[in-house]
C-alpha cells in the first residue's frame, strides 16, 4: 500500500528496543585504565558512539576530571566536555554521546544520583546506557563490566514522581524492574586484532588465569558481607518508616471513625430536636488530613543493591568451590 511522502514523514518511527551494546576493545581498555588509576576513588567519563537499530555501538570514550565541589568548576566541566568533543571530531571520532561510564566499589552503584543522571541524559538523547565497571572484581580475573539502562515503565513513574503502593501495583513494577541489564558484545577493528594476534602469540596461560586460580578471596568476601550488613540496616530503617506510616494511618482512620460516630449521634440528637444536621465531613479537622505515603524508591534501590551483593557472593562462592575441589584432587594425587 503506497503511502504518500507526507504520511511517511509524519509517522514517527518506533525505536526498536535496545538489545545489545557493542563496545570496542579500545573503549574497554580506556575505561579500565581510567578506573584503575584512580581507584578507590570513583570516576566517571563520557561514552561516544553510534545508535544503530537495536545495537548501540560505543566507539570511543573520554574521562571526566574529578570535580571538586565548587560552583565555578561547574562551567569548567561543561567547557572541558565541549573542548574534548570538538577535538575528537577533528580526528573523525564519532561525536555522539551515547551515555556515560562510572566505576564502582563492589557493585554498590544503585543510588538516586544514578537515576537522576539517567533522566538528565534521557532528555537529550533518545537512547543512552550507563556502563558500570568494578575494578575490585577484576583482580579476580572477571571482567566486571555491565551495561545498564532504566526500564521505560520505571522512567514514566519517576517522571510522575509517584511511588505509592497503588501505582506500583498497577504497573506491576517491582524492584527488579528498575534497571535493565543489556548484554555486551565486544568488537575490534581488523587492524587491531591483527596487531594483537601478532604481538602476543597464543600463550596457553595468561595473567587472567592466574588471577582466577587464586585462592585468597577472603578479603573480598569480607567486604561484600560488610556492605551487605550495612544495606540490611538501611533496609530495616526503610521498613520501620513504612511501619510507622501504616500505624499512623490506621490510628488516623480509627480517629476518623470515632469522630464520625460522634457526629452521627449528634445529628440524631439534632434531628430529634428538629435542627439542621451537621455535615458528616469536616475537612478543617486535622484528623482528616491525609498523611503522605513515603516513597518506595529508596527501599527499591537498597533492595537492588542487596540483591547485587548476594549475586556477587554466590558467584565468588561458586568459584571457590571449584578451586577447593581442584586443590583436593591435586593433593590426592
Amino acid at each position, binding site marked *: 500500500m503506497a503511502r504518500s511522502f507526507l504520511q511517511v514523514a509524519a509517522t514517527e518511527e518506533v525505536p526498536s528496543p535496545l538489545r545489545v551494546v557493542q563496545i570496542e576493545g579500545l573503549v574497554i581498555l580506556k575505561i579500565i585504565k581510567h578506573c584503575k588509576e584512580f581507584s578507590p576513588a570513583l570516576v566517571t567519563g563520557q561514552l561516544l558512539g553510534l545508535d544503530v537499530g537495536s545495537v548501540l555501538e560505543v566507539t570511543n570514550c573520554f574521562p571526566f576530571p574529578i570535580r571538586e565541589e565548587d560552583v565555578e568548576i561547574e562551567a569548567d566541566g561543561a567547557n572541558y566536555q565541549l573542548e574534548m568533543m570538538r577535538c575528537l571530531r577533528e*580526528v573523525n571520532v564519532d561525536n555522539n554521546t551515547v551515555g556515560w561510564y562510572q566505576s564502582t566499589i563492589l557493585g554498590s552503584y544503585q543510588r538516586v544520583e544514578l537515576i537522576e543522571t539517567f533522566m538528565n541524559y534521557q532528555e537529550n538523547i533518545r537512547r543512552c546506557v550507563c556502563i558500570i565497571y568494578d575494578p575490585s572484581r577484576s583482580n579476580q580475573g*572477571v571482567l566486571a563490566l555491565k551495561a545498564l539502562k532504566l526500564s521505560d515503565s520505571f522512567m514514566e513513574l519517576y517522571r510522575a514522581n509517584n511511588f505509592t503502593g497503588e501505582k506500583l*501495583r498497577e504497573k506491576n513494577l517491582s524492584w527488579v524492574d528498575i534497571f535493565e541489564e543489556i548484554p555486551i558484545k565486544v568488537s575490534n577493528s581488523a587492524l587491531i586484532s591483527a596487531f594483537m*594476534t601478532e*604481538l602476543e602469540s597464543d600463550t596457553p596461560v595468561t595473567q587472567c588465569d592466574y588471577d*582466577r586460580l587464586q585462592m585468597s578471596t577472603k578479603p573480598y568476601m569480607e567486604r561484600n558481607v560488610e556492605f551487605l550488613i550495612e544495606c540490611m540496616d538501611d533496609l530495616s530503617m526503610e521498613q520501620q518508616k513504612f511501619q510507622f506510616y501504616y500505624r499512623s494511618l490506621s490510628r488516623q482512620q480509627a480517629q476518623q471513625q470515632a469522630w464520625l460516630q460522634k457526629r452521627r449521634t449528634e445529628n440524631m440528637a439534632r434531628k430529634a430536636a428538629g435542627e439542621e444536621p451537621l455535615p458528616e465531613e469536616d475537612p478543617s479537622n486535622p484528623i482528616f488530613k491525609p498523611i503522605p505515603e513515603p516513597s518506595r524508591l529508596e527501599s527499591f534501590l537498597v533492595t537492588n543493591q542487596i540483591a547485587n551483593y548476594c549475586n556477587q*557472593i554466590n*558467584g565468588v*562462592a561458586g568459584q571457590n568451590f571449584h578451586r*577447593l575441589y581442584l586443590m583436593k584432587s591435586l593433593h590426592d594425587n
Partner: protein
Amino acid sequence: MAAGDHTVLQLSTPSTVNLSAKVHPLVIFNICDCYVRRPDQAERVIGTLLGSVLPDGTVDIRNSYAVPHTEFAEQVALDIEYHHNMLVSHQKVNPKEVIVGWYSTGLGVTGGSALIHDFYSREVPNPVHLTVDTGFRNGEGTIKAYVSVNLALGDRQLAAQFQEIPLDLRMVEAERLGFDILKTTAVDKLPNDLEGMEVTMQRLLALIDDVYKYVDDVVEGRVAADNSIGRFISDTVASLPKLSPSVFDKLMNDSLQDQLLLLYLSSITRAQLGLAEKLNTAAQIL
C-alpha cells in the same frame, strides 16, 4: 679542539643510550583506531605520546592522542593549537601524564619526521619517537621506538640520528582482560564467573597434559632430557604443601563450610527481600 689532522665523528654523550621505553596496550589501540579513522588523503597519522619517566630512566608511555597534520613533498604542518588543547584537556584528568614523545604510523623514519621531532624536542628534553607499521610491510606489524642522538663533528652539529631503543610492550592489562576478547573482531558475550573458571581449568588441564606427555617422552627416551625443565617440574611438584591427609581434610572442610555458610546467608537474604517486597507493595489499608 684543534682543527687539522683528523676529525673524529663523535656521538654525543650516550647518557641516553640506556633509555628504554615501555608501551601500554592502550596506546597501540589508540594509534590503530586513529589510523583507521584518518582522513582519506592522509597517508599516515601523527600524534603525541603521553606518559611519565620512571625514576630509573625508562619512559613509560601510557596514553596518546592524534594530532591533525598536513604533509606536502618536503614540508609538514602540525596543528599546534589542537595539540596544546588536547594536552590541557588530558592533563585536567590526569596531571601526572606529560608529553614524552610522538608517534607516527608507517615503517621507518622519513625526512619529515626529523622536523616533527625537532618540534617535539622543544617541548620535552628527549622525546621518544614511536613508529607503528600499520601497513605490515615486513609481513608483520613492527613497532619501534627511537630517540634522536646528535651527531657532532668536532664542535659542529652535523645531524641528528635516530637511534633505536629497546621497547617493552607491557601487556598486563590486556592479559587481564583476556586475549580472546581483544584478538577477534567480535565477541558475542563476556564470560561470567563460572564460564571463565571453566576455561581456565581447561587450560590448566591442557598444561598438565603437556607436562605429563613431556615427562613420558623423556622417560621413554624419545626426547632428550633438558635439565632446567626437569628442575622446574620438580620444583613445581615440590611446591605443593606437604600436609598430612587429616590436616588437609580438615582445612578443606572448613573452607567448604565457610563457603556454604556464605551461600546460605545470601539465600536467606534473598528470601527476606522477597518477603519485604510483598509486605511493602501488597499491603493495603482497608
